């Protein structure tokens, strides 16, 4: 009981208070603590990666064992084999890591092209979203559509072709006045939400992330 509830809650409160005090104190030994603890979180996350990788391995092994169709087994094998190859060459002592040639090859010619291509799917999805979603269904959608249309035209040579400088001036105004003010309101609201969430966590009202008894 003590270990499950009181100690974790105590750790959260102490750490949160240290972070807050470190902000207000310029004392050279205390104020760097704020960034130090961020680095410490990365160390914890680095260790926890092992739990993540094991979860990935377990899920794929289960798929291999229970997969009915033979082909499904291959895909999980592809994931596991590429995982082990990359880990092996990546953690090879001495020549391991970024400058290991096999690791660099797989990074440059497998991972980077896949990342860039997944990212580029956005060009297709933006087109279909523009076609389908840009329907003036409600007054809200109409406002969104008209603004997007003006801003789009204002930033493209085709827009200048139609209207000369006017469209880009309107775009400039919308971006610097209405858009900036709207984003400011969202940021203020969200910041209050974060503060309330943090207060609830520090007071122990919100504990779902720690799990029950």
């Amino acid at each position, binding site marked *: 009981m003590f270990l499950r509830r009181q100690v974790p809650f105590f*750790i959260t*409160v102490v750490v949160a*208070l240290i972070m*807050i005090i470190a*902000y207000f104190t310029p004392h050279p030994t205390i104020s760097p603590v704020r960034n130090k603890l961020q680095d*410490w*979180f*990365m*160390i914890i*996350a*680095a*260790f926890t990666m*092992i*739990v*993540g*990788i094991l979860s990935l391995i377990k899920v794929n092994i289960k798929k291999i064992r229970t997969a009915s169709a033979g*082909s499904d087994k291959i*895909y*999980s094998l*592809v*994931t596991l084999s590429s995982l082990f190859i*990359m880990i092996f060459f990546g*953690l090879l002592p001495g020549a*391991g890591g970024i400058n290991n040639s096999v*690791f660099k090859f*797989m*990074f440059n*010619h*497998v*991972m980077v*092209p*896949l*990342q860039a*291509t997944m990212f580029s799917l*956005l*060009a297709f999805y*933006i087109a279909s979203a523009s076609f389908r979603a840009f329907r003036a269904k409600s007054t809200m959608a109409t406002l*969104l559509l*008209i*603004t997007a249309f003006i801003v789009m035209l204002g*930033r493209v040579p085709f827009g200048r072709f139609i209207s000369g400088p006017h469209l880009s001036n309107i775009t400039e105004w*919308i971006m610097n*006045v*209405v*858009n900036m*003010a*709207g*984003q*400011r309101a*969202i940021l203020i*609201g*969200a*910041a209050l939400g*974060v*503060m309330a*969430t*943090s*207060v609830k*966590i520090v007071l122990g009202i919100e504990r779902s992330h*720690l799990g029950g008894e």
Partner: protein
Amino acid sequence: MEFIEAIGFFIGGFLTLFIFSFLYKDNPFYKFAEHLFVGTSAAYWLVYMYHNVIIPDVVKEFISGNYWPVIPVILGIFMLFRLIPSVSHFSRMGIAFSVGIMAGYNIILQLETNIVRQVGATIARFNNFSLTGSNAAFSVNSIIILLVVLSALVYFFFSVEHKGTIGGIAKFGMWMLMITFGASFGYTVMARISLLIGRVLYLKDSWWGSIEYLLGI
């Protein structure tokens, strides 16, 4: 273009086409690329964390005599206890520590950056305010910004039903938010196109170039 690089572009090009095939419909090629992507990238980030977090922030610090990082290392090991059901609750220490950092850091960061500075910037726009002369346009815009911020904030009221005057202001606030969203959508739509241009150039120059190189054309 050396041989290894040609092989690389050759593979990269086919993987690009495998991902694009998903646009038509799910197929074995995409499934293969996806599973390869998950395996390679999961391993990459594990290796990245080892070389860029564990070595510099833990090993090197210990060598140079600073033993403070032993605390996150212990908490990290507690996180590993999840693998043993009987002691898995130890991982709550690591979670509690991480969530404590999040709460403490963000309660101040959000307050300073997103509340105090934003309110200050809105008010600062009214320095040397004048509706005539050179500063007129700037001042009119300042008033509009103030009104949009106030009405959008009213939209975010939770404990009051959006009816009557409050409802009216909140509706106006929602309209302003819709203009905000329309503007940022329109703004980024065009930038996404250049991502596709990059991939087509990759296929045309690197991939096609590697095929010609490998076939000795």
